[in-house]
């Protein structure tokens, strides 16, 4: 057995392939396609304090090599997650990370407290949500605001704390440092890129238009993600989990090259539902074929 493990100290992965939040639900649908226990870890759908119905209207827009979504964080709420989903994840031995989101700092603090109470081993914080008390600017776009938020979560939660950064900023470096200084354990990058889909239909001179403003994901954002991961690693010492448009072995190796310790598969799960497990196999085969000792050795050579 080739050693593909990633040890973050507080959190351990058998292999470096995770599934991104929002693309794997609560991990109760993909059993049909693969053994989910073979995934490094699954990141749950973003959970808020209260149940949310999500956005009205059109939620999806396919682009060239990508997908715009505006789901609006439809989710069952933290209590329902704890009562209905948590036991199953634990019983099946699925390694998971809880993704949390909120509208106010207080929301996040309460979610952190519940995560601590329930002994959830790792949480990923979505900071791309509008901060209602700060004129709906996203938490993750202002370094002071982000520092305060992460500090308050850190006070309440002692497990492995990952902050998922948004790419919709000018200086990702400042935000990465804010997260590091506030005491987080890890950064995941990137969340979706803001995008707009425009669909036009004509009936003579009558125009029927549909505008879908949301988060762009998929293959087309990979260069943005790689650049962000590289820039974060240049200033921060925290480990980084890279994501954004990864769909094959080579994509994964590119992220390792710029400093990612692990990666997440997002949109590609929809196209290819067994990719997470297949990639782990391919990675092991590649390591053997090329003659590397293990994943650590491969990463060292990639970063030389």
């Amino acid at each position, binding site marked *: 057995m080739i050693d593909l493990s990633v040890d973050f100290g507080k959190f351990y992965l058998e292999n470096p392939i995770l599934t991104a939040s929002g693309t794997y639900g609560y991990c109760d649908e993909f059993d*049909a396609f693969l053994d989910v226990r073979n995934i490094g870890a699954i990141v749950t759908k973003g959970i808020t304090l209260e149940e949310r119905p999500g956005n009205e209207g059109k*939620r*999806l827009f396919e682009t060239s*090599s*990508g997908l715009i*979504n505006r*789901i609006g964080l*439809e989710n069952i709420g933290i209590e329902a997650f704890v009562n209905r989903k948590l036991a199953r994840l634990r019983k099946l031995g699925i390694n998971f990370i809880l993704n949390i989101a909120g509208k106010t700092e207080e929301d996040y603090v309460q979610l952190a407290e519940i995560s601590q109470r329930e002994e959830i081993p790792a949480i990923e914080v979505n900071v791309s949500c509008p901060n209602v008390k700060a004129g709906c600017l996203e938490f993750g776009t202002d370094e002071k605001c982000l520092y305060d938020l992460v500090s308050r979560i850190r006070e309440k939660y002692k497990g492995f704390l990952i902050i998922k950064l948004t790419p919709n900023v000018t200086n990702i470096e400042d935000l990465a440092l804010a997260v590091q200084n506030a005491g987080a354990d890890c950064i995941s990058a990137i969340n979706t890129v803001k995008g707009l889909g425009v669909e036009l239909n004509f009936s003579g001179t009558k125009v029927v238009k549909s505008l879908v403003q949301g988060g762009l994901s998929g293959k087309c954002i990979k260069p943005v993600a790689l650049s962000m991961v590289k820039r974060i690693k240049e200033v921060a010492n925290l480990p980084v989990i890279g994501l954004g448009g990864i769909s094959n072995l080579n994509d994964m190796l590119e992220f390792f090259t710029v400093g990612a310790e692990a990666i997440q598969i997002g949109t590609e799960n929809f196209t290819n*539902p067994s990719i997470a497990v297949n990639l782990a196999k391919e990675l092991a085969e590649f390591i053997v074929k090329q003659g590397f000792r293990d994943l650590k050795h491969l990463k060292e050579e990639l970063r030389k």
Partner: protein
Amino acid sequence: MKKHLKGIVLNIENIAKDTVRLEFSTPLESILPGQFVSILIPHKTLRRPFSVADFCLNSAFGTNNRNFDSILEENAKNKGAITVLFKLKGDGTNYLKGLQKGDMIDYLAPLGNTFTIPDNKNNPKNTASASGDITIKTTDARGCETVDRINQTVMNGTKGMDKDSEPSGAIETKAVACAIGVNSSKKALLIGAGIGIAPMLYLKKILDKKSISNYLISGFKTEEEVIKGSDGVVIGGSVIDKVQNLIDEFRPEILYSCGPKVVLQMVCDIAKKNELRAEIAMEKVMACGIGVCRGCVIKLEKDDAIKNASVCADGPVFSGAEVIWE
């Protein structure tokens, strides 16, 4: 149990204007009417969902299918065939149109739920022969039984109709139905609009097999676009205009429909007015196809509460009375 599968294209043909029928091999032993498959389109982010228009499980077919075992190892297990219909619309359907016999298809199936099938007990007129339908049963090249209805032939024979004298461009369905001696009792009325006929055709086949009397009326924009297999066809006008007459004549217990939103909405209205149950198969852009991404949700009103339902996993078939229209 849904699976990630590979199949071989067994047949692909144009069946009407911009309309293609695609048949491919499958290891599945059954698939229910209303269920769909989600086909991978190379270089596109999203798979494309297609309602099942037919499914055959037949050993005779299996023999022909063996020619393709060298192309796809898994094909040895593929004893069945799934048929889907699609209208050429965008990149996905235009890619599929270019497939040829022997090409590989990557798909997820079976996805989604199915229609409620009424039981056929306590109905003295429930069998196809008793209901007076004239049917011709044939066996096609693949060894699959097909049922071609005489009245479909009648419909297709109404070419050259003077559209000006018939403002809606519609065929007088009722008259045609009576002319061929359809009995005035049908358990199920099926309403297909455009390519929405696909799941109705498969549902009809299952109802026929279960000897549940039924009548399928379909509407198409033009004569060139007509897809065969209905008991009655409306061309140019609205299929909905015929539905009340058909309800009055056949006294169905249930309406089934698939088609554009506007048609489904009208089917639900008519069902409500007549105090009938309507089950409609809905369509929405999907990402995952299995209920996790929440991209294709609609709103349902159930037990006085409004809640989200995903078209892909909670549907695509919904009780018309529960759907809240956007």
